[in-house]
């Protein structure tokens, strides 16, 4: 267990260090999500009544669109010099790679969220009636679900032709449950509904997270086979 954790941390560290040096993903992702935020305020007049209606959806959609940019880069790094084969021939197991990559993508997505989220308060005059803590929990759980499926499918598309275009097409249909649940929970928290009214959504996100943690763990070996 401790050894597995150490190997996973190695992958996380490796990814984050190379991201810190190259700064290719996070900068693009942050810029893109701020850009979406600005463009949407032009598409929809940000008057107070309509904002509440569309904002939860907007927040999650911008998160997912900018997240896709990062996910497409996840395995791009390993393509040069056959780095992936190098990693696989080291004592690191495929599932270490999966967990490690998912964790490092999650960290990058959190950075995007931390920078972008306050801007919604500035640009859209956002007010939250519910608890901020539960909102953050929803953001966390939803992001985990998105990243788990995304990291898995990014590995799937990374060796295919037209991978960048393919990822959103195969990822979005699978994201429907977590996206729907996250948007519904977020708008319930914005509106200050009681916990009972959106607890089923949080449970659904949790179930989704668990399913798409276990299933990829079982199947990831098949994606990483070298022939």
């Amino acid at each position, binding site marked *: 267990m401790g050894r597995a954790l150490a190997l996973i941390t190695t992958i996380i560290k490796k990814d984050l260090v190379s991201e810190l040096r190259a700064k290719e993903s996070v900068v693009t992702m942050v810029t893109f999500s701020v850009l979406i935020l600005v463009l949407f305020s032009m598409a929809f007049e940000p008057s107070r009544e309509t904002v509440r209606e569309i904002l939860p959806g907007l927040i999650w959609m911008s998160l997912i669109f900018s997240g896709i940019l990062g996910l497409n880069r996840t395995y791009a790094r390993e393509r040069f010099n056959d780095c992936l084969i190098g990693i696989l021939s080291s004592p690191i197991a495929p599932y270490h790679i999966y967990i490690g990559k998912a964790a490092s993508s999650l960290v990058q997505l959190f950075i995007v969220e931390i920078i972008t989220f306050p801007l919604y308060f500035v640009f859209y005059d956002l007010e939250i009636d519910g608890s901020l803590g539960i909102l953050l929990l929803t953001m966390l759980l939803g992001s985990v679900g998105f990243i788990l499926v995304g990291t898995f499918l990014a590995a799937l598309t990374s*060796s*295919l032709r037209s991978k960048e275009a*393919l990822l959103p*097409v195969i990822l979005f*249909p699978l994201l429907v*449950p977590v996206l729907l*649940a996250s948007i519904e929970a977020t708008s319930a928290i914005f509106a200050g509904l009681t916990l009972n009214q959106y607890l089923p959504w949080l449970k659904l996100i949790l179930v*989704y997270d668990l399913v798409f943690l276990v299933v*990829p763990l079982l*199947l990831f070996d098949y994606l990483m086979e070298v022939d």
Partner: protein
Amino acid sequence: MKHTSLLKRVLLASTFVSMLVSLYLVFVWVPVERQMGPVQKIFYFHVPSAWVAFFAFFVVFAASLMFLKTRLELYDIIAGCSAQVGVVFTAIVLITGPIWGRASWGTWWTWDPRLTTTLILWFIYLAYLIIRNSAKGHVRNLRLAAVFGIIGFIDVPIVFMAVRWWRTIHPVVFEANNIGLPPSMLTTLMVCLLTFTLLYFVLLLKSMKIEQVERKLQNLISEALKAY
């Protein structure tokens, strides 16, 4: 060339007979529904198509699992061809549904759990076919398609659950009509279900044959190129 096996011929013949019987039952024998009129007859094509679609996707799931386990090319071919047939039948469901809905509910589309899930299902397996298409001709890529065939199927019940909650929290516009079917309509539906299931197997075998011949041709071409 080998002759078509006896089993295939029996399947083809029984599908043909069963299809004729179904058409007779639907258009001649079964009475016209009083409230909805002739448009209700879409039901006899709509429901069996939906059944075949779900069944086809289950076959994709099972065959993908078997492929990963045994690595026999046959399972990959079954999965791919079943997905094709399934997507076609899902498209039929998505086309016939709104036609019926327009006539009986007065609207083409509603975000009802079943409708929405079917639409998402269609997208998932379209994605599966896109993966297969861009994965042609490499052993590794057969594996990728199989993995997606499994994970896509697992997602379907969660989609259904999510959409159902989504719709129950929002106002439900149309209640599902829980009118029990009279015996004549039930009989017709059952026969149609049988016909469509037989049709599924006919189409599956046909498209598998085409796929096998195509792969054989590819092998011959690459061998010929090597020899050259």
